[in-house]
């Protein structure tokens, strides 16, 4: 079984201005295996894969890459694709307005003399979709699909070429459990047919389940490579490698001190933004108590984000009816500005599109939702701005040289921390967190949980929307379940378990409106 390595990366060093992202990283990938890369946010995982796939061309890094026995020097991604290396980046790169087929062949259009052979494209598209087990009409527009399906399309797109090595950078970060499982099965299937894969993930249970070997990177250096079969690898073992110590608990301890009900949404009804016949919320009711962490469970597309965004200053859909009450009084929340001044904050699930202006520096991004707090007479106080940003950078351990660095350059996890900082700075009474730990490493997750608990301990209400049931179960005092836009049930921490949640997440409301 001692297969020759398909890939060897030797002493790769990659510098960005002021940042040593990779320092002498070496890695060997055996042919036909599934090789996982683990490490904290900003450890350099994505950078390593970008070096491999030619995103950072030869000459901008040091070290050598041996692929299939020969040294390769890619100067762009096209060359690495032609060599049989396909990469699926951490951020989805499909064009929402185009159809599946158009996206699949974007940049690789079949045909001659610039005329696209649509017949061939159609049939090939059907084949590719079949390969990834997706039953969708190839003419469907991408924007109508959920993230899970989009991820599969990314893979289908990669498979169009003859792929020997498939690189997946956090492919399941945005997927729920069943979607993730489907994707993992798919990769396992590819392995049977002889393909080699490299997978980056912060979901360690998945890695444990599927990887043959694991390379762990910390601060731009290789820590170790584990062989799953022989080294007795489990999640704790991986974490120890990643953070250099073991983590006792996945969730910080907390004694909930829950006060009175202070935030309540009543009879909330919202129309779909494009389709006036469709209601995304219909007479929904929920409330939050002081010091309480309230979970929202639901499948992808169940309408949790839509509900949250519409409550947050009617940022989604068309408001039809319903009231919001805080501290016993009805409050008027007609736009985001009202929401913020009434002490409501919303951390979006999609940091790149809805959460951040990627042109901002960390400093500017951190204060961007709370400018009123550091300005007088409309003039921003630069000293305070800096102090605030610096404070959050330290508290949330955002990995960057200084707060003047652009957020566009940060690793995904660190961008997420900036978004959190931005909303924490507005000092909300009710903070809605939509998938706050997506793409975040175990250590940082723990920190975010700690922050959530601190907020609750200060008597604030936290609404936690998450697709990871363990997270919901570990953090929440009460969990609402949503199915097809309706709140179907509410379970206390004691009643809730994966089974009971799953039942309510997949069936329509049985009882009256949940209270």
């Amino acid at each position, binding site marked *: 079984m001692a297969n020759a390595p398909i890939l060897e990366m030797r002493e790769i060093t990659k510098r960005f201005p002021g940042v040593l992202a990779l320092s002498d990283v070496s890695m060997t990938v055996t042919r036909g295996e599934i090789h996982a890369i683990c490490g904290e946010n900003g450890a350099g995982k994505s950078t390593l894969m970008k070096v491999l796939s030619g995103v950072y061309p030869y000459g901008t890094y040091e070290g050598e890459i041996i692929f299939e026995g020969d040294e390769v020097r890619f100067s762009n991604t096209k060359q690495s694709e032609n060599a049989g290396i396909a990469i699926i980046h951490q951020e989805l790169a499909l064009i929402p307005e185009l159809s599946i087929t158009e996206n699949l062949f974007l940049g690789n259009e079949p045909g001659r003399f610039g005329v696209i052979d649509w017949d061939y494209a159609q049939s090939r598209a059907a084949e590719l979709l079949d390969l990834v087990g997706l039953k969708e009409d190839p003419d469907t527009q991408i924007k109508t699909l959920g993230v899970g399906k989009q991820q599969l399309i990314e893979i289908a797109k990669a498979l169009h070429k003859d792929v020997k090595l498939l690189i997946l950078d956090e492919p399941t970060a945005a997927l729920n459990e069943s979607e993730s499982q489907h994707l993992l099965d798919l990769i396992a299937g590819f392995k049977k047919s002889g393909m080699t894969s490299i997978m980056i993930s912060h979901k360690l249970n998945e890695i444990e389940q599927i990887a043959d070997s694991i390379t762990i990177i910390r601060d731009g250096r290789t820590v170790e490579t584990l062989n799953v079969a022989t080294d007795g690898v489990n999640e704790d073992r991986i974490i120890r490698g990643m953070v250099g110590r073991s983590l006792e608990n996945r969730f910080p301890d907390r004694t909930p001190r829950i006060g009175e009900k202070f935030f309540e949404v009543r009879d909330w009804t919202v129309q779909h933004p494009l389709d006036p016949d469709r209601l995304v919320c219909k007479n929904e009711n929920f409330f939050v108590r002081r010091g309480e962490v309230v979970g929202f469970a639901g499948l992808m597309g169940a309408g949790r984000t839509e509900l949250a965004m519409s409550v947050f200053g009617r940022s989604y859909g068309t408001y039809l009816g319903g009231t919001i009450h805080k501290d016993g009084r009805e409050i008027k929340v007609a736009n985001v500005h009202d*929401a913020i001044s009434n002490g409501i904050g919303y951390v979006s699930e999609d940091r790149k*599109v809805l959460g951040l202006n990627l042109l901002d520096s960390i400093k500017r991004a951190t204060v961007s939702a709370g400018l009123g707090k550091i300005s007088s007479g409309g003039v921003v106080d630069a000293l305070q701005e800096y102090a605030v940003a610096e404070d959050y950078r330290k508290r949330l351990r955002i990995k960057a040289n200084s707060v003047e660095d652009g957020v566009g350059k940060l690793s995904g996890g660190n961008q997420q921390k900036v978004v959190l900082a931005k909303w924490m700075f507005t000092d909300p009474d009710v903070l809605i967190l939509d998938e706050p730990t997506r793409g975040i490493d175990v250590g940082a997750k723990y920190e975010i949980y700690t922050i959530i608990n601190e907020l609750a301990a200060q008597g604030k209400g936290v609404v936690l929307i998450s697709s990871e049931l363990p997270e919901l179960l570990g953090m929440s005092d009460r969990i609402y379940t949503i199915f097809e836009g309706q709140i179907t049930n509410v379970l206390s921490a004691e009643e809730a378990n994966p089974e009971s949640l799953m039942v309510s997440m997949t069936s329509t409301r049985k009882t009256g409106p949940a209270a």
Partner: protein
Amino acid sequence: MSKFTEGVRTLTGGRGISQYSMIIALVVIIVLFDIITGGLTLDPTNVINMVQQYSYILILAIGMVMLIIAGHIDLSVGSVAAFVGIVVAQSMAVWHFPPALAMLLGLVTGALVGAWQGFWVAFVRVPAFIVTLAGMLIFRGLNQVIGSSTAVPTPDSYNWIGNGFLPDFGPDFGYSNPTLILGLIVLVALIWSEIRGRRKRIRMHAGVAPMWVTVVKIVILGGVTVFATYLFSTGRVGTSFPVVGIIAGVLILIYTFVTSNTVFGRHIYALGGNSSAAVLSGVKSRRVNFLLMVNMSVLAAVAGMVFIGNAQASGPFDGTNWELDAIAAVFVGGAAIFGGIGTVPGSIIGAFVMAFLSNGLSLMGIDSSWVSVIRGLVLVAAVAFDVYNKTQGRPSFIGFLFKGSGRKKPTTTEEAIEAQPQGIDKPLGDKVDERLPLS
């Protein structure tokens, strides 16, 4: 990265090297033309003329860069300026308005025009390109309707704002006293703000640039101020610093401050950088867009009023192609077509580049048709150079000048990376915007 490059970065305001390279390009252009024209370019009379003749580009570039940062554009500025010009001229000629009242009327007219266009852009969400394309036709037409397609002269008492100078006083040293005083004030303000900025950064414990950077900056900017003071104070007898120069200068200062130090300024950048994220951070996009459109038309009104003062009449073809001058200045000055990037000072430098280019070429006796061709080529070249450098990761202009003196290409990814995520991530931001209701 070395201390030196860090220093250079701070010199350029930390926004990459591009603005710095624009300044160098400007200096090169000025010196080059001065040599070719045998000193005509930097002759005091010419410089004073230029200020009076081209100040409209400066004034328009201010409003234009703000719109472009926010992701809009205004094609109607020339027509609006002409429309306001004729209203002001008529009000004085027909209704015998005193100049001050006429100017007030001009500003109000500008604001109303802006409110009209702003309504469509901000509330109905018609793209600014379309609204102002229509505005270009509408207000050009209205100018000609009101003025019956003829020129309407303006009184001397009014023309002062366009062709007047700071009044002279005090003993005669052979220099214009008010200009000397103005120069001194600017010099002191400059040194003071530089030192204050430095102190501030030290107090923030932020990366403080080495002392030599501050000194170099003061020496360069101070030198320019002294030289300009000298130029303006040694013009023909009876001339000094032009009034329009003061107007433009004050506007530049105010708007530089507004865009970089105020909440409103932040909102402009936020909307242009990612409008969905901005709206979800509480930016009232409708309000900001509306105000930006109003602001642009008011500035166009100012430009139009200054222009008729200098021309001593309002005519049917005033302001033709001004939008192009202003837009060109903004892009030469480093703004990005997809929004979110740009600065007022950068655009002012861009405006100077375009003005000195036109002026120098016409001083050389080159036919105006060719001047137009050359200006067009320079615009494309300047922006292409910027874009190319950002994508290739080479240091722009300055690196080009010092090419061969050390750095090899792979080490210079700074700008590449700085430019990278911007273009790529932007389009999505706009897509999602459709899902968000107006706010």
